């Protein structure tokens, strides 16, 4: 199996293949970081997961925090006791953590503190594609942008140093194509680390009452003045190519890779300024670069973040230079991820260069192939308990009920034939969006969210339902793990990120503690019983909670393999009338139709028995495996 112990190798200069996220984990060890906090989220998850595997041996502390806000707060405490810390999260996690981050910028830190924000252009696994570089501007925190795994490691180390030098948290902003790219990484020396901190009382700096906050806002602005000098001198801000055509390109992060390859593709003799420290930008360096070119093209993913700043510099220092990007006229898309091809197209349009390859012909042939190609969207796995849950929910709620859904595998419940999900905004939102829907429509309203999401952000919403007496039913889909992001433990699992057992926080006790009067727990595979319970829950005058509890099938399958338990797939008997009820209702990938007959794919069937319980002719037989 992929061996993460490579991250512990005490062999400086050795060249190894690392995933961007693993490279950041190695950077943590080379930077002397001692406390790592995280909440899992694609594309950031493997940072915490890698650290979790090696934490004990490396002598550092890591935790999966309840959510990103808590993760930042824990680290803010430790970093202010002089210990080096890092928190990793996906981009939207920073929205959750923003309250702490904005004021921690005033307070600052003593030990170096890096916040990794992993943005997801193209929304590969996210609900939006916000550009978190604007958080750097908003919070007045320095921001570094690596373009590949090597830089991801190196910048982690530099960010820790910069943080300590400035006394400020530093943002390390990655994107999916950095987090989830593997590349060669040259290892550096492992650093000493210490988990021992001390709290030195410094009330004016550290206790943000208004009088102190005014002072510290001043200090923050001073620190950022100093940061400008660091940015100007940073080797991560550098001219990587000299050109003679009068065309210059400014780029950062993953976009830089596309930019230089596009320049080669077009045989463009352009100068290239690569920015690694993108807040504060090196204004003097940019001014000089502008002065040396007639046209400057800013190539960046998502928002015109650099373009805004380059234009501001140009206005004062080089007003005659033409600056191109995506503002006045959009030469590069503001949405989705870029590619070498899309960047080359933009560059060609600006410079009048022609392509050597006929992409138009290729694309029209490809459009022909795609026309009648069946789609293959992600789906709930065979044996997934969410399928049983949504089957029950749909059976009870029908078309009349409203369905507020949430972030996790169960968002896939919107796919046919289950089609459960009317509104999805962000982590933990369902329990509260359901209250708004229910209040103004009077419809039966069911909110669904998972166990990890419950702990992450649903509790204030649930308290609200009790306090304001909202008539909603929350169904907690408890599969005993954080499934979507790679099966991380959470407060309900009784296991920590350090791999040690801990108190299991009981969902039921939390729900009871919030004052919910109707609470039931049931196995969703027991379709009849689960349906009765849900029916009863929907009839309550106030908020009700049903916990549908059944473990993630990927975990059960793994456990069975470990124990050597053989799965005997279910069978379709000759009682089958080909009525297609199972196919129509469930959409299980293990149920296939061959020559008009329903068959069970033996390789996929996990013997959950859901199909047998919906068959009107009792034509599917087998023994349920739990």
């Amino acid at each position: 199996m992929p061996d993460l112990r490579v991250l512990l190798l005490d062999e400086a200069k050795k060249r190894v293949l690392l995933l961007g996220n693993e490279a950041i984990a190695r950077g943590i060890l080379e930077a002397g970081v001692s406390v790592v906090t995280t909440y899992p989220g694609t594309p950031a998850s493997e940072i915490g997961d890698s650290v979790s595997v090696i934490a004990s041996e490396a002598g550092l502390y890591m935790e999966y925090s309840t959510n990103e806000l808590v993760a930042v707060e824990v680290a803010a405490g430790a970093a202010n006791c002089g210990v080096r810390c890092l928190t990793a999260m996906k981009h939207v996690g920073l929205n959750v953590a923003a309250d702490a981050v904005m004021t921690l910028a005033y307070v600052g830190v003593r030990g170096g503190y890096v916040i990794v924000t992993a943005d997801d252009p193209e929304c590969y696994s996210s609900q939006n594609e916000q550009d978190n570089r604007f958080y750097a501007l908003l919070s007045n925190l320095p921001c570094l942008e690596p373009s590949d795994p090597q830089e991801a490691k190196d910048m982690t180390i530099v960010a820790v140093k910069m943080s300590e030098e400035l006394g400020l948290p530093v943002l390390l902003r990655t994107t999916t194509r950095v987090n989830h790219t593997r590349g060669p990484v040259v290892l550096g020396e492992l650093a000493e680390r210490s988990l021992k901190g001390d709290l030195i009382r410094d009330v004016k700096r550290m206790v943000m009452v208004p009088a102190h906050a005014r002072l510290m806002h001043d200090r923050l602005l001073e620190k950022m003045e100093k940061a400008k000098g660091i940015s100007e001198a940073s080797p991560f801000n550098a001219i990587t190519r000299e050109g003679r055509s009068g065309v210059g390109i400014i780029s950062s992060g993953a976009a830089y890779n596309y930019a230089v390859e596009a320049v080669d593709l077009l045989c463009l003799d352009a100068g290239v300024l690569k920015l690694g420290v993108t807040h504060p930008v090196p204004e003097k360096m940019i001014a000089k670069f502008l002065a040396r070119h007639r046209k400057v093209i800013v190539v960046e993913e998502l928002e015109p973040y650099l373009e805004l700043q380059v234009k501001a510099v140009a206005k004062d220092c080089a007003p005659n230079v033409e600056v191109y990007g995506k503002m006045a006229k959009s030469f590069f898309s503001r949405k989705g991820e870029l590619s070498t091809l899309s960047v080359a197209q933009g560059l060609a349009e600006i410079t009048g260069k022609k392509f050597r390859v006929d992409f138009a012909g290729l694309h029209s042939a490809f459009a022909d192939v795609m026309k009648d190609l069946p789609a293959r969207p992600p789906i709930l796995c065979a044996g997934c308990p969410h399928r049983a849950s949504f089957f029950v929910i749909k059976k009870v709620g029908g078309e009349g009920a409203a369905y507020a859904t949430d972030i996790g595998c169960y968002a896939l419940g919107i796919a046919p034939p289950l089609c459960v999900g009317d509104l999805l905004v962000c982590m933990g939102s369902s329990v509260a969006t359901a209250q708004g829907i229910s209040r103004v429509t009077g419809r039966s309203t069911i909110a669904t969210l998972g166990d990890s999401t419950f702990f992450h952000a649903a509790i204030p919403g649930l308290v609200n339902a009790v306090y304001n007496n909202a008539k909603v039913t929350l169904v907690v889909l408890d599969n005993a793990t954080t499934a979507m992001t790679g099966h991380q433990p959470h407060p309900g699992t009784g296991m920590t990120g350090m791999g040690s057992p801990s108190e299991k926080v009981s969902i039921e006790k939390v729900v009871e503690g919030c004052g919910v009067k109707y609470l039931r727990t049931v196995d969703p595979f027991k379709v009849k019983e689960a349906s009765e319970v849900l029916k009863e829950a929907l009839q309550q005058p106030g908020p009700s909670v049903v916990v549908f509890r059944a473990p993630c099938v990927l975990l059960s399958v793994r456990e069975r393999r470990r124990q050597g338990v053989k799965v005997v797939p279910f069978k379709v008997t000759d009682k089958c009338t080909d009525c297609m009820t199972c196919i129509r209702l469930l959409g299980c990938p293990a149920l296939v139709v061959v020559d008009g007959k329903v068959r069970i794919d033996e390789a996929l069937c996990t013997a959950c028995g859901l199909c047998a319980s919906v068959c009107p002719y009792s034509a599917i037989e087998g023994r349920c495996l739990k």
Partner: protein
Amino acid sequence: MKEFNIVLAGVGGQGTLLAAEILGTAAVKDELNVRVSEIHGMAQRGGAVVSTVRIGDAVRAPTVIDGQADVLLGFEPLETLRNLKYASRKTLVIMNSEEIPPAGLAAKNLKYPGLEEVKQKISRFTEKIIVVDAAQLAEEAGSSLAQNSVLVGALAAVASFPVKLESVVEALKQLVPAKHVEANVKAFQLGYGAVKKEMAS
């Protein structure tokens, strides 16, 4: 060295990620520059997945330009078609013949295209097609889960593939689960042999 681009297209759960990691690890063993792109998270749940491996001194971007794949390694016929935009006349398509019908195909009254139809579509992009029965070869090797190793072996048999055979085998042994090493090495050899034989004929 000129660049060498591989696109691995398959279905979540088929082991495309591991195959790509094996290729990347092998390239680093040979002291080559390499980038491997992966997609994790929601997309993996039985959905279409694609990984790319790019080897070459000047390579920086992890993703492949349209039409610029040297090898399109299709783990499944439909997914091979879905990624044909990476193929052009220079591309060799190595395709596993095992079909994985997408869920809901029957409910939507859609048919899975036949192998000849698939090959005919590929031939609009390139004439160089090798079909491998990875399921059968993996079975022969002793593990139905070793299809990805069959396909890595098939790729390693391509003459222009710039990584040493022994480096790929070494990376494979390092990365597949310890108790399945033997079956996976066997699967690799069967895939390698199948393509060598095809090329000789």
